[in-house]
């Protein structure tokens, strides 16, 4: 198609006085492919847009160049305008002659303004339409992990009428919910019953994920249940695979056993009927192995308070920093102190040794500035907060990175807390780090929102921006290796040739593949080598 370009220059209400608009307009008018040059005072307002619309329609142009303020302010608006006129928004090329030109310099800047517009013109010539189309999504979700998080998400989704398959590795649902029960009240049995009763939730227990293929809206998941292999498709997948805690035998100089117990064991003891011999002195200790976790603080405060109430023991806590940066934890810390729990803070690790059938803790308390020696009947040891069994395997299967502690990494820890680098695959709760119940609940609602947004329209938009020239592709697999979104794959072109293909649905348009392709077979439309070079050459030509 013959390129026919319209150029709109905007003088921002006449305020860009250091640009000679008629002069640069004259220079541009005679360029090849340019149908007209219009000078406007306010392209961004109703009046300006109206004039622009009628010009585009009457002249029947197929490329639009706009020189105005920062694209930050105007690009979205103009793209919408083009779309209304049935012109592909990718056929728009912008030059910022306000912030990056007129405002940035003193004195006449007409030459620079002209250069900027010329760059946009030469780029516009090479632009091609970027088509979007809608692809149907499967209105069904797979939730992996039948603990508190997984069950809660399934229940929330069933409220929205979204069909859910809840998969659990163990033979029963529930996960580590027992630990929550004593302190926070979610009732394990009631929750399991509700999940079982919900018509839209299908439960598969004793099963594991062995493969995930496909892309957002249409994932094919291989599930292994005993010897049986199941193949199912889902629109989205939520991983809620939880965490594990552990007191490693080698962590303490003396073997954990009767008098050094885990926090989990304490919770069990507290749920059992009161023992005959209540431990007189109990020591809690944390920050020995992992100083940067909130979990030990919370477990210790809850445990210490429960012990005080149930057994009336003397309770001492040894730690470095109490992690109070979650809702309500400072209050819990205060309550513990009011109830008579004594806190010692150390900088150097205390020594722990056996003393007959008791345990001796020796520490230097930095607040008292004195050495403290305490002989306890029972020591409740810090548990390491670790990713659950199989996290590593699953992460390599899914090609999702883990963080330095082995937990699933979010796409961007900050922007979309529950999303991952692969669109349509989500991670929630403690499988992505040590969150605590408040933040876990926030995660649950966040993922439900994401899934609703994704599945309720019934379709997702596919933007055809990154293209592989299969003739140039030498199937070196570089793109497949570097793509963080698992969007690149090999496809059979004909009986002889295989080439890379970019799935536009999975693609996040980061451009890495196009940049690294050694054969230059991948084109990122709008920022292709030719388009960028044309802009650079445009300055050179002046």
């Amino acid at each position, binding site marked *: 198609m013959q390129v026919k370009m319209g150029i709109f220059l905007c003088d921002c*209400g*006449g305020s860009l006085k250091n640009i000679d608009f008629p002069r640069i307009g004259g220079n541009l008018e005679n360029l090849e492919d340019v149908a007209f040059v219009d000078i406007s005072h306010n392209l961004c307002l109703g009046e300006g847009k109206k004039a622009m619309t009628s010009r585009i329609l009457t002249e029947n142009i197929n490329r639009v160049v706009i020189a105005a303020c920062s694209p930050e302010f105007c690009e979205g608006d103009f793209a919408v305008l083009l779309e209304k006129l049935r012109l592909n928004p990718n056929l728009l090329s912008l030059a910022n002659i306000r912030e990056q030109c007129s405002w940035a310099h003193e004195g006449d800047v007409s030459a620079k303004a002209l250069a900027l517009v010329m760059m946009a013109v030469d780029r516009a010539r090479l632009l091609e339409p970027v088509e979007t189309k809608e692809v149907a999504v499967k209105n069904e979700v797979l939730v992996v992990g039948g603990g508190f998080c997984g069950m809660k998400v399934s229940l929330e989704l069933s409220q929205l009428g979204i069909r859910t398959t809840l998969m659990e590795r163990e033979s029963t649902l529930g996960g580590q919910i027992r630990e929550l029960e004593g302190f926070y009240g979610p009732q394990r049995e009631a929750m399991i019953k509700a999940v079982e009763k919900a018509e839209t939730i299908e439960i598969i227990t004793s099963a594991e994920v062995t493969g995930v293929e496909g892309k957002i809206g249409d994932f094919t998941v291989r599930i292994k249940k005993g010897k049986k292999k199941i193949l199912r498709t889902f629109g989205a997948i939520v991983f809620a695979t939880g965490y594990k805690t552990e007191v490693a035998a080698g962590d303490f100089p003396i073997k954990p056993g009767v008098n050094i117990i885990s926090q989990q064991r304490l919770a069990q003891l507290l749920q059992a009927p009161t023992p005959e011999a209540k431990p007189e002195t109990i020591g809690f200790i944390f920050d020995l192995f992992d100083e940067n976790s909130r979990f030990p603080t919370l477990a210790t405060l809850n445990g210490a308070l429960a012990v005080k109430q149930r057994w009336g023991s003397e309770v001492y806590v040894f730690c470095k920093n109490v992690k*109070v940066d979650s809702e309500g*934890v400072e209050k819990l810390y205060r309550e513990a102190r009011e109830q008579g729990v004594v806190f010692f803070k150390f900088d150097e690790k205390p020594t722990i040794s056996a003393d007959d059938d008791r345990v001796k803790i020796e520490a230097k308390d930095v*607040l008292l*500035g004195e050495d403290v020696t305490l002989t306890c009947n029972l020591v409740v040891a810090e548990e390491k907060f670790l990713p659950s069994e199989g996290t590593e395997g699953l992460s390599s299967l899914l090609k999702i990175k883990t963080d330095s502690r082995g937990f699933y990494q979010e796409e961007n*820890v900050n922007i979309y807390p529950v999303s991952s680098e692969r669109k349509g695959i989500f991670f929630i709760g403690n499988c*992505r780090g040590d969150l605590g119940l408040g933040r876990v609940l926030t995660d649950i609602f966040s993922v*439900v*929102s994401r899934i609703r947004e994704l599945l309720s329209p019934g379709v997702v938009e596919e933007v055809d921006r990154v293209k592989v020239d299969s003739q140039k592709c030498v199937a070196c697999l570089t793109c497949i290796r570097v793509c963080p979104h698992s969007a690149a794959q090999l496809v059979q072109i004909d009986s002889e040739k295989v080439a890379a293909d970019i799935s536009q649905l999975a693609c996040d348009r980061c451009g890495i593949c196009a940049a690294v392709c050694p054969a230059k077979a991948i084109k990122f439309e709008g920022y292709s080598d030719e388009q960028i070079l044309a802009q650079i050459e445009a300055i050179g030509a002046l």
Partner: protein
Amino acid sequence: MKTNKSIVVIGGGIAGITSALELANGGSTVYLIEREAQIGGQAASFCCKATEVCSKCSVCLLPQRLSEVASHPQISILTNSTVTGVSGGLGNFQVEVEQKPQYISPQNCIACGMCVEVCPTTPKAIRPPSPEAVPYSYSIDESQCLRLKGERCNHCREVCPTDAIAFEHKLERQQLNAGAIIVATGFDVFNAREVGCLNYGRYPNVLTGLDLERIFRNQGSLKFSSNGKKPKKVAFIQCVGSRDENHGYCSQVCCKYAIRLARLIIYQNPDTEVTIFYIDLQTAGKGFAEFYKECQESIRFIRGVPIEILEAPSDRVEVRFENISEGRVERENFDLVTLSVGIAPREDSWELAKVLGMNLGDDGFFDTKEPFNSVETNVEGIFLAGACQGPKDIPDSIAHGISAAERAMEVLQRCK
């Protein structure tokens, strides 16, 4: 009565913006009500704390969201506006909104700046927006403008190419109908003057964390405005306005911002000595452990919060703190002391609580219906997002904003 599916979001900070976007992308019509002339809230005045690498302070998450909100067809932004009354209930709220006169219409202003050039007052009565402001339009300061003070000046109006200036604008009241309300009114930064012995406001080299954020944001580096000198010895004092007799909570943000700022100061000026005085360091959070470990080499951490700050010779201040291991009070001089001020409930929270019929919790933040359900309130159909419910950092506020939007949509969907 038919359920109204539009939703009012009160507060245009990071949490409110996130909620609004989430709702609008989910198909709802959203009214975003902001008291100030621009949306963005507190985070808009914070600085990027990157050194040679990103320190993940999340401040940069705001601008992109701001422009997304500004151009979203389903979000109407009402700036300079406050909620003065609410009636009705879930599915059918009537929200009374009062909008201060906007002498410059954000719809028409193209930010060309010609009005400022002709404004005859000093300082100018017309002010430009900050670089990332949304809406990006100029505003008139009533106390400076000659015309608004009754004189006959009309210069700006004569030059304005888009007729954006309208002096006849009056206070406007309107009623919005909505099915649900999300409250995202944010927080107040703790007023450090309340702690008299730290002498904030009295000595120029005692600043708050917020002051430092603004200095870095506006100047790019840390130096005294009076003599252009860079401080050589800097202290941070943690938990100012957190974890004390009046504040039974941890503000959750101060340890992290202090460590990030300290690292930034050292990065820009490697021979600066930085000391952080603390009670308990809060170093949990994704990736923060490694960051903290790196900082331990360059920053001196001292356990215990200083007792008072006094004047010292040659423009310095003396910090008195307890040396615990020696059991005595130490005195040390610093060029600059930064008070790591915490997050406090907004002073006017109770007014809004009264208007909306919500409860306030012990600490003065809005109360939730039940513990651990941090978005639903005692009023059905009114939800909380962000730090108005309790201290939150930017990522937590974003997550909370999404969460509140989800609850609101879910509840509205269920109501017939």
